[in-house]
């Protein structure tokens, strides 16, 4: 039977009351995921404060050294082991180097180690996890077995071995060692996300339209799991900073005259009884950096992924 719209008696229809119509209109502009997350993040006072502290720390570590007339490498035999004073704000070390500048340079190294190695493990982890999750089957099986093997031994051990193999303890070697050891956690997270997402219709639609696999992974799956990726990324920064400090502390960090915060702590530990301030300032700097990154990461997790909240 052919039903024509015009044939239907108009009596069957009636106007919707105006109020009902209004109920169905969207009053507020709809928020995107990121706007929503940003709103949640702004409400979290601890996290915004940590973000503020982090920005200040980054600015200080960039600008700070130029505010002092000293540099990090010049020895001054006339001012060994000075206590903090108006000239040397954090005092000097056993070679007469200004500790304020050295701590700021150490912060610069620690922060760049954290950020660069996080970016390296982001790239490796996302590609590895994406491929493993998307292709599934045997490829996934083999790739995840490898991850399992790497996962069962502490990352610090690998980093130490890699540093021993790379020999010279330069900054770029630390980047390499940390970057190629820390992606395992990221790969697992990305794989899990991709596994869940690839069943959804938009992936099927993309595939039906003939989109290439690599493009599906990069343009559809990864952007949709960006929330948990960013959270993992943020959390990996403090652990990279921690590992660098750890490495420096056991003598595998950047070499003199450069010094990271771990090296400064290690240098100071032999003389902590007489010159405790030499230990105090770099320790404080590490603690503030770690605390700010951890608290900000927690806040970011709550904002980006409320379901992950504990």
């Amino acid at each position, binding site marked *: 039977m052919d039903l024509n719209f015009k044939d239907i008696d108009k009596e069957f229809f009636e106007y919707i009351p105006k109020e009902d119509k209004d109920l169905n209109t969207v009053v507020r502009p709809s928020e995107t995921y990121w706007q929503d997350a940003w709103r949640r993040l702004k409400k979290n006072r601890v996290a915004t404060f940590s973000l503020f502290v982090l920005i200040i720390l980054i600015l200080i570590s960039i600008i700070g050294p130029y505010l002092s007339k000293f540099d990090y490498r010049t020895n001054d035999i006339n001012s060994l082991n000075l206590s903090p004073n108006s000239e040397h704000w954090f005092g000097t070390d056993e070679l007469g180097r200004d500790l304020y500048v050295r701590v700021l340079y150490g912060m610069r190294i620690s922060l760049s180690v954290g950020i660069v190695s996080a970016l390296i493990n982001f790239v490796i982890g996302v590609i590895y996890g994406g491929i493993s999750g998307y292709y599934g089957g045997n490829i996934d099986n083999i790739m995840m077995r490898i991850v399992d093997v790497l996962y069962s*031994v*502490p990352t*610090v*051990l690998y980093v130490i071995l890699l540093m021993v193999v790379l020999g010279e303890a330069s900054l770029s070697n630390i980047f390499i060692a940390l970057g190629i050891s820390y992606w395992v956690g990221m790969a697992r997270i990305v794989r899990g996300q991709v596994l869940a997402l690839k069943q959804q219709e938009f992936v099927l639609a993309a595939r039906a339209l003939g989109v290439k696999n690599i493009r599906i992974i990069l343009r559809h799956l990864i952007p949709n799991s960006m929330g948990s990726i960013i959270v993992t990324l943020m959390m990996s920064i403090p652990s990279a900073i921690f590992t660098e400090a750890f490495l420096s502390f056991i003598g595998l960090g950047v070499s003199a005259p450069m010094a990271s915060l771990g090296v400064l702590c290690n240098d100071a530990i032999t003389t902590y009884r007489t010159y405790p301030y030499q230990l105090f300032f770099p320790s404080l700097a590490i603690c503030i950096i770690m605390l700010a990154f951890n608290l900000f990461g927690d806040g970011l997790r709550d904002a980006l992924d409320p379901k992950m909240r504990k």
Partner: protein
Amino acid sequence: MVKYIIKRVISCIITMWAVATITFLLMHAVPGGPFEKEKKIPPEIKKQIEARYNLDKPLWWQYQDYFKHLLKGDFGPSYRYIGRSVNDLIEEGFPVSAQLGGVSVILSLLFGIPFGIISALNQGKWQDNFVMFLATIGITIPSFVLATLLLYFLSFKLGIFPSMRWGTAKHYVLPAIALAATPTAFVSRLTRSSLLDVIRQDYVRTAKAKGIPDKIVVYKHALKNAVIPVITYLGPLVAGILTGSFVIEKIFSIPGMGRQFVESITNRDYTTILGLTIFDSFLLVSFNLLVDILYVVFDPRIKLDN
């Protein structure tokens, strides 16, 4: 169950083999070789040394030779300490490290779990905020910073505990606290969140509705399920304490495996690095296996297939 255990054991063996192989190859990829020092060694002597340690043989020969000995539990000689084997070093260092590590594990469970319970039962109150504040501090402060702070205040300023050497019970206190701080923080966070999950479940409500006193509900009904995640954390916990011991044993000059490891790195003592790495990962892998099995025993809800 048996099938599950066999499967896990096999995967552990594969893991061990992979770790040993990777470490072996890494240690043989080190540029310069172990006997290269500032002073040039005459080529004849170098040849002699290389022949002594079979370094002149092809790599695959060294590999199968190393594995043959490894299967018998022989980690080979140390390159640095003439006449001593890596086994000697392990025999010397392991008991010390195991004692310190054991004390730290017990400490972190003994304090972490009760703190977590207090925090969860007073959710949102000052006790909760206080414990979570401490936990955040514990997670963020690197162990070597904590260790040096403890040394400065408790040992140097107040003189309560010795700062160096090893032997009496007093020597354990500071290093054990420094080692246990971060795991304690993790355990208390974990206990808190899992207990909060559990006390909202129906069976706990049922128990309460039946008029069972709150204390019994928490400690008898809820806690049993709440500590299961803590059991899974035992693996990472031991791993953390193991790597933490590198720094702590160095700071407190404790003659354990951690310090030997750090020393072997500074000395470029490649066979010792290799042996200790394999030994450490063996410990961890078998511990993880144990935890996995315990986990299934404690929580019968876990499906073994898949």
